[in-house]
């Protein structure tokens, strides 16, 4: 057997193994290099897997050579490849950034732990995406969640502890709901393999246990997804975590939950009659709209930039879920494109904010006034990403909103176009608050001199900013994979 066949296993195993090694080494530079190597190779593997999927269709890999009904199956299709590349790609950018960033935010004897937890979190998120086994998904979800609680708690701000604790409680509730849901499904179908479940569920229409499973899974995943009104753990967790952690989690954690939702909805329940006759879509539409408007409104009134953009994340998740609620190829394409575009945009913003935190020592709106002069590159980057959040043509955000609008029109829901556009106006307001403070107010005394963040932080952030603009023009990668994946998902459902 050659190594290429084992790529699906290596995808998860490399970062998973790097974590305990990093703990054993206890030396921060070595730990950093080790984790870096693991994550960069994970990224390379994800790209290889994507190419393989493109060439020869979905890959099925049996762990330990136990064939699927008995053993755990890893399954890579277009959707999985997209999420794998997103997670490992963002991790590959954030990790080099984190080295300079945590220098100021985490006590240096804890650095090796940070790297270990980071690797573990990446392994967990990659595992959620790649596994074809419902229980295994729960296990990886716990791995990523537990490690992210630790990562958040590493923040120097003492409120990070409370935030992490709240996230832990909520995350645990969510995870237990998911495991209850998976358990019920197992009871009803007798298998944990997703493909197997999907086949056996077809015969079970109107079964109450299956309906309960769906409800538990929906609520559990919605919690991890931070779907309004279950988003309350998110702003504090993002706001008080170390900058690199905020950026990584904002870009990937909720996106992987979106993946899990899509998987359960379309791949597992998709072929059952249950899914189509439930008022599911309408209810999700309602929550999505509430998230879009209320969270954006709350974002407008925030004083702390990290919280401001955290609430904006909740609003953007509204757009993502809105796409799912259309239950059409265009809608799911919009969801996936926005998942990637928002990950890149928000990742860039949080990385840039980390630089601001480092240089100015604070990120409240009153602290950063006049930063257009002292940190011109950083400010400009945030403005560009802000434009993408608004959805200005020429940025990534526009492309995803374009597809959302297409999906809404396809559905004949013209009023939704108005809703999408008017919630974008709220984004204009909160982005403008930053612009006004950064460019139209005089810098605080002592801030007049130039002081950008170090290059090792600016370059990763810059990469993501460039990607934000790039995906606004060249949509072949994002829309290409997303529409392939959407067709697979929705076709398997029809």
């Amino acid at each position, binding site marked *: 057997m050659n190594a290429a066949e084992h790529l699906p296993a290596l995808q998860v195993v490399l970062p998973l193994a790097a974590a305990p090694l990093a703990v054993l080494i206890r030396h921060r530079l070595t730990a950093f290099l080790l984790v870096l190597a693991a994550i960069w190779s994970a990224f390379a593997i994800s790209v290889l897997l994507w190419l393989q999927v493109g060439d020869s269709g979905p890959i099925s890999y049996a762990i330990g050579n136990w064939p699927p009904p008995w053993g755990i199956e890893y399954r890579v299709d277009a959707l999985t490849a997209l999420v794998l590349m997103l997670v490992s790609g963002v991790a590959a950018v954030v990790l080099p950034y984190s080295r300079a960033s945590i220098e100021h935010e985490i006590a240096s004897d804890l650095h090796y732990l940070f790297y270990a937890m980071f690797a573990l979190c990446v392994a967990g998120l990659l595992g959620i995406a790649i596994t074809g086994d419902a229980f295994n998904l729960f296990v990886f979800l716990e791995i990523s969640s537990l490690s992210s609680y630790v990562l958040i708690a590493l923040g120097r701000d003492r409120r990070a502890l409370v935030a992490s604790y709240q996230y832990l409680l909520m995350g645990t509730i969510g995870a237990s709901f998911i495991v209850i849901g998976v358990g019920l499904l197992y009871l009803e179908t007798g298998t944990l393999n997703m493909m197997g479940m999907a086949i056996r569920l077809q015969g079970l229409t109107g079964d109450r246990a299956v309906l309960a499973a769906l*409800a538990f899974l929906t609520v559990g995943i919605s919690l991890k997804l931070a779907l309004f009104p279950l988003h309350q753990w998110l702003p504090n967790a993002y706001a008080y975590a170390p900058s690199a952690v905020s950026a990584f989690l904002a870009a990937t954690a909720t996106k992987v939950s979106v993946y899990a939702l899509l998987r359960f909805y379309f791949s597992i329940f998709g072929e059952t009659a249950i899914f189509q006759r439930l008022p599911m879509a309408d209810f999700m539409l309602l929550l999505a709209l509430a998230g879009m408007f209320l969270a954006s409104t709350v974002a407008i009134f925030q004083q702390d930039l990290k919280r401001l953009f955290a609430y904006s994340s909740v609003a953007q998740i509204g757009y993502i879920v809105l796409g799912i609620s259309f239950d059409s190829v265009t809608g799911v394409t919009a969801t996936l494109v926005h998942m990637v575009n928002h990950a890149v945009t928000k990742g860039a913003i949080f990385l840039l904010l980390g630089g601001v935190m480092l240089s100015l020592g604070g990120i409240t709106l009153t602290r950063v006034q006049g930063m257009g002069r002292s940190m011109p590159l950083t400010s400009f980057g945030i403005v560009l990403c802000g434009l993408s959040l608004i959805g200005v*043509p020429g940025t990534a955000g526009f492309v995803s909103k374009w597809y959302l609008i297409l999906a809404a029109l396809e559905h004949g829901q013209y009023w939704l176009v108005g809703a999408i556009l008017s919630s974008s106006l709220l984004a204009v307001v909160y982005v403008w608050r930053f612009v006004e403070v950064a460019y139209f107010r005089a810098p605080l005394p002592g801030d007049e001199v130039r002081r950008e963040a170090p290059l090792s932080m600016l370059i990763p952030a810059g990469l993501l900013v460039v990607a934000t603009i790039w995906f606004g023009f060249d949509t072949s990668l994002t829309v290409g994979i997303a529409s392939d994946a959407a067709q697979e998902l929705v076709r398997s459902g029809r």
Partner: protein
Amino acid sequence: MSESLVVHPALVMIAGALLLPALRGSARDAGVLLVPALTLAALLALPEGDLWQMQWLDYQLAPLAVDKLSRLFAIIFALMSLAGGAFALRQPSRLEIPAAYLYAGSAIGVVLAGDLITVFLFWEFMAVGSTLVLWSAGTPGAWAASRRYVAVHLAGGVILFAGVTGHLLDTGDASFTRMQLDSVAHWLILIGFLINAGAPPFSAWLPDAYPEASWSGTVFLSAFTTKTAVYVLLRGFPGSEILIWIGIFMIFYGIVYALLENDMRRILAYSIVNQVGFMVTGIGIGTEMALNGAAAHAFSHIIYKALLLMSAGAVLAATGRRKCSELGGLFHSMPLTTICGTIGALAISSFPLTSGFISKSMVTQAAIDGHLQVVWLFLAAASAGVFLHAGIKFPWFVFFQKDSGLRPPDPPASMRWGMIVFAFLCIALGIWPDPLYALLPYPVDYVPYTAAHVITQLQLLLFSGLAFFVMLDYLKRTPTITLDTDWLWRVAGPAVARVFAAALGKLRTALSGEIDHGFQSLALFISRHRQPDGLLMRSWPTGSMAWWVMVLLLTYLLLYYV
């Protein structure tokens, strides 16, 4: 033509604009002149046709498409940037020239775009660039004006974008071709275009904003936005009859307000609306002659209007005064500026042997050829009006008239050369129109210098000149009243307001109680929720989060089971 020479001129200009702030001293001066020169060279090297193709979303884009019409506009835009850059070389604001080049580059991008999406993208960049130009004047007036300006243009951009989106969804085709006014989308596109052209009822943004820019900024502003709008109308809506009447309205709006105005640059700003009116009318007539005329008029208009604004800018830079009533007699010490300003004034009045004559007369001729007697009559009357407000009023009150006692010197060399080159072009095009005619989109079958044309035009000018000096006493009184249009705000406005107030008084009192109450409770609501412990603002305790989880679970179960 080898492939390697296909460089997008707009990108050359925009890249130059981004590089300029990094340069200092003489390298910067060289850069200011080199960037438009290189743009022009890149432009002249382009063959015709769709040179760049790309796929975006599901649409075929052509970001670089060249034909005679787009080349004509791109050439004059590049020339304008060159002369404007020279004129503005000693402008103390370091932001202005880069902003102006971003603006000019985007305008070139619009005219070289073969599809609506690229048009829209550069359209927005143009709004940003021009706002920055306005902004760089650095005065509170310019700041306030730039905010109104950007609001109008962003609104216009949104309307245009809605139209473009509708067009894409209707047809699935992004290419920028002639459109009929047969759908909401096309009307929206037309409105978006017309807002930039300064058409009513949105024309107020132009005279509001342009005079607030710096002495060199106005020169740039006058050239690109409205002329780009003329270009897109030429390409998108030639022969739409509604444009004739919109154009005629603009012509007279410009004349009336310019005659009432006292600020020299505001006079010229109103006359932009007026001159664009001629072009829009030509586009509305829609025959080959008329379209040629509109394009040629845009070309020559950019030159003489920039020349006029340069001379006004030179006066402003030297004296710091803008109002006609405070100026006068400057020909003593500013002979060159006086000559250049007068040449510009003659050109705008379409004096034979100037560029205005050989271009505007094509539009009037097209009206005759199309048997549009009424339109022709309006155009002829307007020609006389142009001479009154811009041809005589501007130079007379600024350079001659009573002696204001000011003796400022002519401007420095860089500004002088900017003016001399454009003054030369005004005359040269008037004497040898053939090179310009060769650039026009359709073959030209028109001889400007026939006895009938020249005599008609001279008669018109003679009589309106006569009228000016006969009524000079009346017109002279204008400066003693600080602003004639003030009357509108001071007397007419309040009178109208009183009528309305009387009629609406009862309704208002009835409503205001309600509205006040509404606002108060809204404010209360917001302040309650804005506070750190407001409902949406505070961090919820974990218990209430868990409560929401249960609520949601029960809702789902209920929804499923029922």
